[in-house]
């Protein structure tokens, strides 16, 4: 995938003498020491990352960690002190006023935590705001704004005013306003943080759904790890103006860079982080279904290895069924005359689960069954099993 937004050595110093503070930073002084010496505040230091086209990149951190400053440097609502921001390979920190305005009108749009809708404009006029300032004719911009409102499910409210809508609906208008410009890059600054939890989850799902139909490159600021995991393809964690770790949600949870990162997921529901494929282990003996291997051979194999369970797969590693010593023995005894079929030995109550099933789905099945749950990939290939031990170990990782 192509890299859409590349940030190189980006710094923001707030205060009267940024140069001096930069020099001290280069000498390795900490943020607090610099504040003591120069009375300047380091907002962001040495941010470095690349966001791929169509990716949802979540920047996470506590308040004051510099995440809002960082995202505002991506469209220069805040001027970077040093460093580069490349959008489609072009350094926006070198752009002139007019080029910057063009960039904001057609390439980068933004959604705000406080919605920032114009109270004197109707929902439709709010959604059309970006198009209006870029000089589009009324009919055309209203048509496009209507489409954007339809996308977020607010078409019936086009003539309402923001103060007549609930918070969730207002933020849908904010989203529609950003979508209407058809900018490929969306900056979302704590876009859902002001909403109550139920609506927040709903909006997150909405965003994920939207991404599946019209993929934007999204930079999403959040302080909520659950949210980051839900919607993020990758997460960058910020502390004190620096990025301390960048990785996929699993990487962040399984291999946190430091205690600060770890502190985020106390209380995080791991069943959302992992899916069945992530934790499936190849702990069970596999038996190939092919000529020359019959039920008795399999039975002997299990006994030799001291196992009670086995998974039968074909030569393409496609999952066929699960067998136990008991089921094999019973099937062999029943079909005394002819060669017994494998199907007769499969344990009926065991059904495979897809690899992308959430842990919360698997949890119930594993807990309620005497057997582990086999996991298969999208192509039907056998990946491994999830049993009670594996589940408990996973759940224990974060507590």
């Amino acid at each position, binding site marked *: 995938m192509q890299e859409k937004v590349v940030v190189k050595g980006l710094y923001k110093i707030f205060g009267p003498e940024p140069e001096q503070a930069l020099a001290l930073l280069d000498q390795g002084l900490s943020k607090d020491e610099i504040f003591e010496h120069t009375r300047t505040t380091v907002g962001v230091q040495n941010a470095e990352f690349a966001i791929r086209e169509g990716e949802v990149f979540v920047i996470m951190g506590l308040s004051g960690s510099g995440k809002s400053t960082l995202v*505002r440097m991506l*469209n220069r609502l805040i001027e970077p002190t040093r460093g580069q921001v490349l959008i489609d390979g072009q350094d926006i920190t070198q752009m002139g006023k007019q080029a910057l305005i063009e960039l904001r009108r*057609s390439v980068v*749009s*933004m959604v*705000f935590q406080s919605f920032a809708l114009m*109270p*004197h404009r109707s929902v439709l006029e709010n959604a059309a705001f970006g198009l209006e300032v870029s000089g589009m004719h009324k009919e055309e911009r209203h048509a496009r704004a209507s489409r954007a409102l339809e996308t977020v499910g607010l078409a019936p409210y086009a003539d309402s005013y923001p103060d007549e809508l609930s918070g969730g609906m207002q933020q849908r208008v904010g989203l529609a306003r950003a979508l209407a410009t058809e900018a490929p890059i969306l900056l979302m600054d704590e876009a859902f943080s002001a909403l109550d939890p139920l609506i927040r989850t709903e909006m997150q799902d909405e965003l994920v759904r939207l991404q599946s139909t019209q993929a934007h490159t999204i930079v999403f600021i959040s302080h909520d790890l659950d949210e980051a995991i839900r919607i993020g393809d990758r997460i960058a964690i910020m502390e004190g103006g620096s990025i301390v770790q960048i990785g996929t949600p699993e990487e962040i949870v399984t291999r946190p860079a430091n205690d600060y990162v770890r502190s985020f997921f106390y209380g995080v529901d791991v069943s959302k982080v992992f899916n069945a494929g992530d934790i499936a282990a190849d702990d069970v003996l596999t038996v190939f279904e092919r000529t020359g291997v019959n039920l008795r051979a399999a039975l002997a194999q299990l006994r030799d290895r001291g196992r009670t369970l086995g998974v039968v797969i074909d030569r393409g590693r496609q999952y066929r069924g699960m067998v136990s010593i008991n089921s094999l023995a019973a099937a062999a005894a029943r079909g005394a005359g002819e060669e017994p079929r494998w199907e007769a030995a499969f344990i009926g109550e065991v059904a495979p689960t897809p690899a992308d099933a959430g842990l919360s789905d698997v949890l119930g099945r594993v807990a309620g069954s005497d057997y582990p749950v086999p996991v298969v990939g999208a192509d039907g290939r056998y990946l491994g099993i999830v049993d009670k031990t594996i589940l408990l170990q996973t759940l224990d990782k974060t507590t």
Partner: protein
Amino acid sequence: MANDNLQIEIPVGEWVEAGVDWIQVNLTGVLDGISDVLAAVIDAFEGTLLAMPPLVLAGLIVGLATWRVGWRFGLFAVAAMALLFGMDIWDETVSTLGLVIASSLVALAIGIPIGIAMARNDSVEAVVRPLLDFMQTMPPFVYLIPAAIFFGLGKVPGAIATLIFAMPPAVRLTNLGIRQVGEEHIEAGQAFGCTGRQLLVKVQLPLAMPSIMAGINQTIMLALSMVVIASMIGAGGLGNTVLTGIQRLDVGLGFEGGLGVVLLAILLDRITQSFGTARRGAAPSGLARLKRLFAADGPGASGRG
């Protein structure tokens, strides 16, 4: 004695006189220009209002009061009009109203742009703010002197004194309103690619409108009070009635003039305030409300239930 030795005279009065003389000699053309423009504006408003048949004008005022404020206030307006006719001060009231509208309009035309400039530039604010303080703490009578010296007696100097006296709230509240526009709205405007001018016209001014309207309301009220005082230099109108009452020690006449001013003040205040409380740019009452009512029956609103 010792007192004589310490006495230092600062001839502020002389300096001001010298300045005034200089202006009179060197800036006659400018003064005449200002005078002509103002006279034209005043004539336009006062002339039109006075030329109207009194019943038509009264009907208009009652209609406006009913539409903007409500039927109860409409009834009040009817009573006020009847009282003004009954006290036989209709022409004076209309003359005052015309002068108030004319000088308020000029005050706003100058004051609002200054307020905008102040909001957008801190140095402008630093210069203008003390000037406004000065203008507002100066006793209103003092404005009459230079106005009369530069422009003689009559309606024009009256309007000059009035618009200077009435301008500060419009400047201040425009500045305040724009500065109070939330950072998030400014950011939203910028993030979607507003130029400086678009930001002003599409974001700052509309959001500052309630504050600006409050400034307009105060300017009009101050203009009314000053127009009455300006009758001392021949501005005419209700102020004249009051002035005559004072000169003749005629309590009845003075009270009638005063009552006329109060009635006019109440009408102007409530009607201009109603524009400030209108939540949206277009008045949502009247037509717009009807339109939305009908629109609600259309297919567009079906999802609302």
